[in-house]
């Protein structure tokens, strides 16, 4: 009688341990608290483990809610074993209706992925430092810009260059116009002098003159 009672009391934890160790539906979890928090790292103890079990039960409840299944997961349904100094352990989730029946791996994976952000935050960790071996982290969606920033910088630079080119070309045009006005002014003066002299320079072609052979390339005259 006494042995039967003893067996009844001791059986569930023993069964639970076996379920945790041998189940293929278990996941290994690894925490790197010191890497994440440095000096502010907390110590891993039974209370932290309790928090883990409750967070996971929470994650299972959320997931079950989504798919409209029974939601009375409890801490007792999260079995933990193989606790190491690394801070790594294995856990198995059992069904709330039948504690000997583990929840399939895929379901647990979906539940964890759904609430990973909440689980991370409960422990002040990140996807890199709280690893579920076998569950890839959901990557943050890349930031989508309306205009990529590089186009903005490009626009600014090109705008400045275009303005500069325009300005320089305009100033060149106005310079030429001024030079042309000056040249026109000289031409009038020349015409005036010719008229004043009375000499008929109409035989000359314009004001270019005629090539006078006497002044051709003759080194003697320039070697002063």
């Amino acid at each position, binding site marked *: 009688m006494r042995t039967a009672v003893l067996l009844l009391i001791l059986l569930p934890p023993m069964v639970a341990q076996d379920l945790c160790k041998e189940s293929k539906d278990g996941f290994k979890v*690894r925490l*790197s*608290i*010191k*890497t994440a928090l440095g000096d502010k790292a907390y110590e891993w103890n039974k209370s932290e483990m309790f928090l883990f079990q409750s967070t996971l039960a929470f994650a299972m409840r959320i997931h079950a809610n989504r798919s409209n299944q029974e939601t009375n997961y409890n801490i007792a349904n999260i079995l933990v074993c193989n606790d*190491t*100094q*690394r*801070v*790594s352990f294995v856990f198995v989730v059992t069904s709330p209706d039948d504690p000997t029946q583990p929840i399939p791996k895929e379901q647990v994976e979906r539940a964890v992925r759904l609430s990973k952000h909440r689980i991370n935050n409960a422990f002040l960790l990140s996807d890199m430092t709280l690893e579920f071996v076998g569950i*890839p982290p*959901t*990557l*943050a*969606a*890349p930031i989508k810009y309306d205009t990529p*920033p*590089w*186009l903005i*910088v*490009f626009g600014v*630079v*090109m705008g400045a*260059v*275009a303005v*500069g*080119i325009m300005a*320089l*070309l305009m100033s*060149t045009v106005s310079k*030429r116009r001024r*030079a042309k006005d000056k*040249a026109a002014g*000289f031409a009038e003066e020349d015409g005036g002098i010719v008229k004043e002299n009375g000499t008929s320079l109409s035989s000359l072609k*314009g*004001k*270019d*003159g005629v*090539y*006078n052979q006497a*002044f*051709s*390339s003759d080194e003697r005259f*320039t070697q*002063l």
Partner: protein
Amino acid sequence: MDTTSEASSAQERPKWDNKVQYLLTCVGFAVGLGNVWRFPYLCQIYGGGAFLIPYLIALVFEGLPLLYLELAIGQSLRKGSIGVWHSISPLLGGLGVASMILSFLVGLFYNTILAWVLWYFFHSFEDPLPWSQCPVNDNNTGLVEECVISTPVNYFWYRQTLNISPGLETSGSLQWWLVLCLASAWSIVYICFIRGIETIGKAVYVTATFPYLVLTIFLVRALTLPGATDGLLYLFTPDWSLLADPQVWLDAATQIFFSLSLAFGGLIAFSSYNPKKNDCERDAVFVGCINSATSLYASIPIFAILGFKATSNFNACVDGNILDLTNAFDIEERNITAENYEHWLLFLNSSDPDRVSGLKLKHCVLQNFLDQSASGTGLAFIVFTEAVIEMPGSQVWAVLFFIMLFSLGLSSMFGNLEGVLTPLLDLHVVPGWMPKEIFTGLICALSFLVALIFTLGSGNYWLEIFNSYVGSVPLLVIAFFEIIGVVCFYGIKRFSDDIEFMTGRRPNLYWRVCWMGISPVMLLVVLVAYVAVQVQTHPTYPAWNPQYEKFPEPEVKPYSDWVFAVCVLLSSAPVLSIPAVAVYRLVRRQTRSPTGHSYPNPYSNQNQDPNPYSNPAFTADERIQTFKAL
């Protein structure tokens, strides 16, 4: 044609505002990207401090004489490269044409490199830097595979910048973002060049001095980074045994030669705008020494930063191993550190060797990381960008670095473009109604259109081809004929007379010995050796092919026949103009009556309608002024 403008164009050659502009422009032309990304690499692979010996010997016996020669003939004959060589001897007119073609071709691919620098510069304002992490793939399940296998930096360069094709056969399409960057690069070059040396002279105040400022900032920052001293020791530790290798001497000679930007015609053009009485000997020594000093000065921060990068990579490697061991054996965190790693490894290996070997731990050696050297675009866009990610305040350093590269390249582009424009302007190819600004714009637009080749998927491969085949042998050939032309056709005595007029003293024994003997011999030896080394191996190129089984290693492919034909064409086209023009002139001489000697006739006007009002003998020429001074 308006006579006043014709008269003014015949008389008024543009002038430098002051000597500083001229010197800065020449220094800017000589100091280019190669000083930053080629010299440190050569120093590293050829035994550090020992490399300085062949380098300085090459500078003294090859670089400085050639530099002095180019500056002197430009200043005395006062024309661009085509005009100058035509004045020396009509048979040598082809030298100028060769220089012009060369400057054009080099300008094409050089500005494409600047376009890439601009692309990186535009992206340096993003947080986080886009080359620091892999992008997420299309269905958000993981990172892009090509990026994960190689590195984020490599992925950003090869895929997101170049969108490189697997080989030369696949041309791919025009990459619109590169076209935009190329357009901005050419626009910036145009705006600096729009009025010739008037605007260049102002631009070089910034572009020639800014790189020194940035290098100093980097120097101060780099020396405070961990691992900097490792990098510097690695760079400068001399390995004297390498001096016996002729390859070292060959590379030193070619490096000095290409670094000083000789044979492009740009230096001749710049010095042609000088007043006639200018001490070009001092200018030449100044520019040559500053160029080499800059190379040395630039290699210090570069190698300090590379040492820092090697140390970071080494630490990451060791940390990766530590994490693997900690996870596999469930040891408490932080128990294994970098210091006791070896001890732990021995202990674990003795207790469970199978599991340890199953982990495939990496063998981390600092020397291996230091040996990962690179030159050229690999240094700037892969190695350096990776180092910048590790530095705190990465955006600032990235922006500074790429602005420095851009101004280094821009001041060299001025020389390239000047080597194209000045001969064309001197030849009066420009129709009279076209202002210089429009003509410059047309040249820039034409270069932009041709350079679109480099924005294709296979553009980088083509750029490497241009770089190796255009920017090497033709330059050596042209320089060799330049020296022969001055020494044999013009005559050292006449040249010394010109120099005496310009500087006030005859060139001393060192210059004459170099011009008449040492430099031509050295150039010929270098040319022959270079060609001999090139023809020994069938040329291959590394291709970035994600489908390659050993990816991310580059797939080494040989050039196909038509590509090889293009390479040979690129090498020979500039050079062929030398004999072509010589033959043409000889033929013309035979078919006409002899025109007399080829001395530059100071009274020969270019226009057919000589105007006594524009007789050069009566212009405000320095010659008259010297008589007045007597």
